[in-house]
């Protein structure tokens, strides 16, 4: 396999998009490492069309060196097509499994006009993965995409998730990052017509030594669109590091824009660090609303005391508080089965971090 030329220079760490990323741990993904590893992508039977198609004729624009190298490397994409006017139904489940080594991948999701669907991507396994996901939500369509990062402890995942939201379309994404050594996801949103609505939700748990980075960029170029971002993270242990960057740009013609972004982090123990940078650029004043909030706090001793004073053991109390912290974001996913699945993953991760234990009485 030949090393591909890309228009993006090798980052040095001084560039704004890379200043928080531990480049030394990227196994050359940001540089010139060869894609000699493997990632398996498979899926459950579904009424929607899932197929491997050639990259020729697929339009995709990378945003950085890693996404561009991955795009140059892949020869086919896994394409999910939600048929026009599909009235919802069972979710489309895709599994991305790292089999070791440095690997690339590309998933394309096309929700045809007036369709409705949920697509769940679950990442597990080992290795270093540069994976892009490109989503097109057709006019009047409604699409939810869940991306779960449940990697092994030493895995690496750098990805670019892009969505183009059509006229009066509704897009909801839920990013759940729980595993991996370094996970860095860049999510970009733009709108191809007026009236689009994009809701980007995120839940992450960062353990000792883990680096979890979520960068979001919503660009409003169409009138009367909405973007809503809510990411919540809990961090525990020495060297646990999270980065959340929320950029929103409202171009002059995007009148009637409604945008809000929020990031909250809960630091569970000493030695963990959360960086959180919201940024809003307004090029028009004729908007419906714009705001952001960012806060990082510690475990509230009074909450734990209150629960314990009702007989609840410390490890159960902790799990209740952390679950409670995530609850409002998880509830926005809007599907009880998906919400339960997300909470289940969170609980399992909390338990593996030694932070809590599920009592038999705990239910969502």
């Amino acid at each position, binding site marked *: 396999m030949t090393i591909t030329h890309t228009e993006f220079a090798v980052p040095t760490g001084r560039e704004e998009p890379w200043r928080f990323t531990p480049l030394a741990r990227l196994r050359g993904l940001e540089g010139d490492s060869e894609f000699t590893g493997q990632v398996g992508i498979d899926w459950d039977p579904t009424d929607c069309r899932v197929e491997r198609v050639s990259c020729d004729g697929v339009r995709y624009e990378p945003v950085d060196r890693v996404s561009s190298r991955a795009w140059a490397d892949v020869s086919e994409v896994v394409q999910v097509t939600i048929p026009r006017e599909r009235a919802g139904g069972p979710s489309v489940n895709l599994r991305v499994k790292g089999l070791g080594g440095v690997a690339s991948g590309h998933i394309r999701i096309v929700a045809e006009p007036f369709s409705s669907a949920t697509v769940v991507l679950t990442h597990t396994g080992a290795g270093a993965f540069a994976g892009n996901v490109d989503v097109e939500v057709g006019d009047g369509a409604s699409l939810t995409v869940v991306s779960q990062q449940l990697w092994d402890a030493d895995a690496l995942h750098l990805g670019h998730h892009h969505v183009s939201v059509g006229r009066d379309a509704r897009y909801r994404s839920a990013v759940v990052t729980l595993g991996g050594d370094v996970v860095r996801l860049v999510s970009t949103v733009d709108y191809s017509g007026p009236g689009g609505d994009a809701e980007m939700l995120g839940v992450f748990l960062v353990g000792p030594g883990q680096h979890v980075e979520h960068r979001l960029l919503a660009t409003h170029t169409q009138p009367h669109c909405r973007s809503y971002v809510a990411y919540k993270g809990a961090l525990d242990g020495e060297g646990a590091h999270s980065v959340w960057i929320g950029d929103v740009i409202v171009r002059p013609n995007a009148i009637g824009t409604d945008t809000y972004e929020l990031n909250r982090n809960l630091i569970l123990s000493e030695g963990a660090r959360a960086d959180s940078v919201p940024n809003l650029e307004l090029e028009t004043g004729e908007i419906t609303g714009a705001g952001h909030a960012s806060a990082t706090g510690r475990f509230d001793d009074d909450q734990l*005391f209150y629960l314990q004073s009702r007989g609840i053991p410390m490890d159960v109390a902790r799990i209740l508080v952390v679950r409670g912290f*995530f609850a409002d974001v998880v509830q926005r996913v809007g599907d009880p089965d998906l919400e339960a699945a997300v909470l289940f993953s969170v609980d399992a991760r909390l338990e593996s971090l030694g932070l809590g234990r599920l009592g038999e009485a705990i239910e969502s």
Partner: protein
Amino acid sequence: MTELDIRDLRVSIDTDGGEREILRGVNLTIKGNETHAVMGPNGSGKSTLAYVIAGHPKYRVTSGSITLDGADLLALSVDARARAGVFLAMQYPVEVPGVSVSNFLRTSVTAIRGEAPKLRTWTKDVKEAMNELSMDPSFAERNVNEGFSGGEKKRHEILQMELLNPAIAVLDETDSGLDVDALKVVSDGVNRFRARGDKGVLLITHYTRILKYVRPDFVHVFFDGEIVESGGPELADVLESEGYERYVNKAANLS
């Protein structure tokens, strides 16, 4: 019979200005079937006493003991004390975002009883208890103390007391901030609890008005970290008419 015994209890907290002693030798014995009212001015250490019984980590016991039926309570963790039979209705109940009242109650009762309650009887018990406290059923779906009015928070504390059924209930100013109707509802709850028998109640209050509804067996005046006077219910009437003035003056004369 239940007995909570507090002996020569001294308690300090660490402040920016160094260690500060808040309780200066408290002696108090509460038996099942007894209700003790503790009254005192703001800042005299009443909540500190309540928190120390429950085991709040902020306070440091420098000497003395607290035992429940002879067992050393101070050696137990906060949750173990609750399971041993101690309940604290807090003056300022804490919000727990994202945790519903119903999940909270079920988790608590499971911890206290050591097994999950039977779903059907449990649902019925909660419904009845809420009804008696004039709480709307929708309450169960709200997050613990989040956006509750002052009165709702206090009813919620009494609801927990009735469902968790402790041996000793410490009520820290549960009457504060209640209007007359809510005060009656809350008092009825306390009286129902007392009527179960062998229940010790430590009723901490700033005002005498709740004592008209919840008749105490003993009244103690708390001042500057200790009990300065004890008596029967009639002591409350004296406090009602005279306030805490004479303790303030006494303290001033002594120093």
